[in-house]
């Protein structure tokens, strides 16, 4: 008797609290889903806006011709396409080896004082505003070389990429089970061989992914290039001379008063975005393939 009363009471309590709890639950679900949808929508809107506006600027001349004088319609951005590719290659050559060795150091020495110092330094490097990187490279490379140059622009981008690469490559190295290293050492491999022959190849896909994301980030940087690569209306492939870059062209064109240049700025944004998105796609396709 008592028991059934208690059970009935429990049931009432349950019934009384179920609905509000269920309501709260669905409210919370909406609360977390909405931002997710919003973020997705934001991404889609940006992509659609750039693709829609940019596609109208695209034609053969846009891709293969050089810049026209101020206010003259026509011309293209070939100088910026080539410039951006050059800057990326230079930045990658400068930052990749350094970043890989740095990440290995952090991985192998993790927990030690020296690794903590390096980690702090890398975090600080990541926090430096990109415009400051541009100014510093101007002092370090442009002024001594007596010229703005692709080299200086690539160096500035390398500094931007470096902390990103180290961080992501370190994560990639961390994912390699410790037993791999132990097994290699147990078989009599010297430490350098265990690292170069086992750890790094095992982390390869993560390392390449890091490189892809680093390049995607560097490709869109404008500020570090303003006092280094400087821009160029002509197609130039000289390392020691100034070169154009897609973000610089977007920056110059979008604040100009010329409608034709506004259109071309969207076109340049289109190219940059397609490049970055396809880089991401290739990397994720590769990753899935390997796994």
């Amino acid at each position, binding site marked *: 008797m008592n028991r059934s009363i208690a059970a009935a009471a429990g049931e009432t309590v349950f019934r009384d609290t179920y609905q509000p709890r269920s309501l709260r639950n669905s409210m919370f679900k909406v609360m977390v889903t909405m931002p997710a949808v919003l973020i997705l929508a934001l991404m889609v809107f940006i992509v659609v806006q750039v693709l829609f506006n940019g596609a109208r600027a695209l034609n053969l001349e846009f891709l293969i011709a050089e810049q026209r004088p101020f206010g003259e319609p026509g011309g293209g951005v070939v100088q910026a396409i080539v410039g951006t590719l050059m800057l990326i290659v230079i930045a990658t050559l400068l930052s990749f080896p350094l970043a890989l060795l740095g990440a290995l150091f952090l991985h192998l020495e993790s927990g030690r004082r020296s690794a903590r110092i390096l980690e702090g330094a890398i975090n600080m490097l990541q926090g430096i505003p990109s415009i400051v990187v541009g100014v510093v490279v101007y002092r370090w490379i*442009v002024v001594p070389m*007596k010229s703005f140059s692709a080299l200086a622009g690539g160096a500035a981008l390398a500094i931007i990429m470096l902390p990103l690469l180290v961080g992501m490559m370190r994560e990639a190295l961390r994912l390699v089970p410790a037993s791999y290293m132990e097994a290699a050492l147990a078989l009599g491999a010297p430490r350098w061989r265990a690292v170069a022959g086992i750890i790094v190849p095992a982390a390869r896909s993560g390392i390449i992914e890091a490189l892809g994301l680093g390049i995607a980030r560097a490709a869109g940087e404008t500020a570090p290039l303003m006092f280094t690569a400087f821009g160029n*209306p002509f197609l*130039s492939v000289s390392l020691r001379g100034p070169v154009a870059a897609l973000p610089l062209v977007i920056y110059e064109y979008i*604040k*100009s008063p010329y409608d034709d240049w506004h259109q071309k700025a969207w076109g340049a944004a289109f190219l940059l975005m397609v490049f970055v998105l396809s880089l991401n796609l290739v990397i994720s396709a590769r990753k899935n393939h390997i796994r």
Partner: protein
Amino acid sequence: MKRSARIAIVAMFAAMLFGIAGTAGAQTLLGAGASFPAPVYTKMFDAYNKATGVKVNYQAIGSSGGLKNIQDKVVDFGGSDSFVKDSDMGKYSAPIVHVPTVLGAVVIVYNLPGNPPLRLTGEVIANIYLGKITKWNDKAIADLNPGIKLPAMDIVQVYRSDGSGTTFNFTAYLSAVSPEWKQVVGNANSVQWPVGQGAAQNAGVAGMVRQIPGAIGYVELAYARQNNMPVATIRNAAGNWIEPNLSSISAAAAGAFPADTRILLMNTDAREGYPISALTWLIVYREQSYGNRTREQAKALVDLLWWMIHDGQAYAEPLDYAKLPAPAVKAAEAIIKSITWKGEPLLK
């Protein structure tokens, strides 16, 4: 996939190496500075490239930026439409010369419904930029423009955010016509603006004025013309209403020229002269043998300068810049001939 990627990378390096070798042959020159003459410079350099194969890269970063770059010796020439004052010569490690190139006008552009033609005086412009006149239908503006219906819109003053020779000439004019402006704001490449919004370079100011209804700005005439923007007619020192155009700019420069061509052309007493006219210069070192420069580089530079004050002048008028008057060309010739390589003149 892997192989083709490798081939692509190798091909790219080959292209770059080839490029280094290739560009050693093609002469290139680098300049930076004033955006005031950028439309005519980029046009001249495009023509010069077609005629001679020499590629001149001019970046319109603003006069102050151009002067800084020539101080740092990272460009072949700086562009400026404010001349270097005697007191600033100490910032240059060696003597510099000013080569005048074209004349232009700082014009007042605006963005109003229907864009009616407007008349403004220097004093009214000063009061607008001082923030004392805030509405387009203010009595001070209405009195100058009888018969024109002015909207009750707020005025949005647009100014240059970067160090600029255009700003220098504009504020020099306002200082000359408004004692209050001279005292409160003054005259420099960059000043503390009491009100308004900043935009970078002439192109940026023109772009911003086009985008904001009720905006007013100051740019070189070419930017206004290229974008079909309305331009205010201004009362000059002689009391005449003057529209900025080729003849009124030339008229302002009809007087004598000093040998070093460092002269302000604003508010001259020429009867038909536009009051905010300005010369623009290229700034180069008199002795060209410095840093890691070659004699070929120096020779290419003086050849370019010589071309610009002669054949290049043909590109000025189609873009609404005035050609250099004959006395200025004569002075410029003497200046270019004074440029040397290890003490020897580069042009005989």
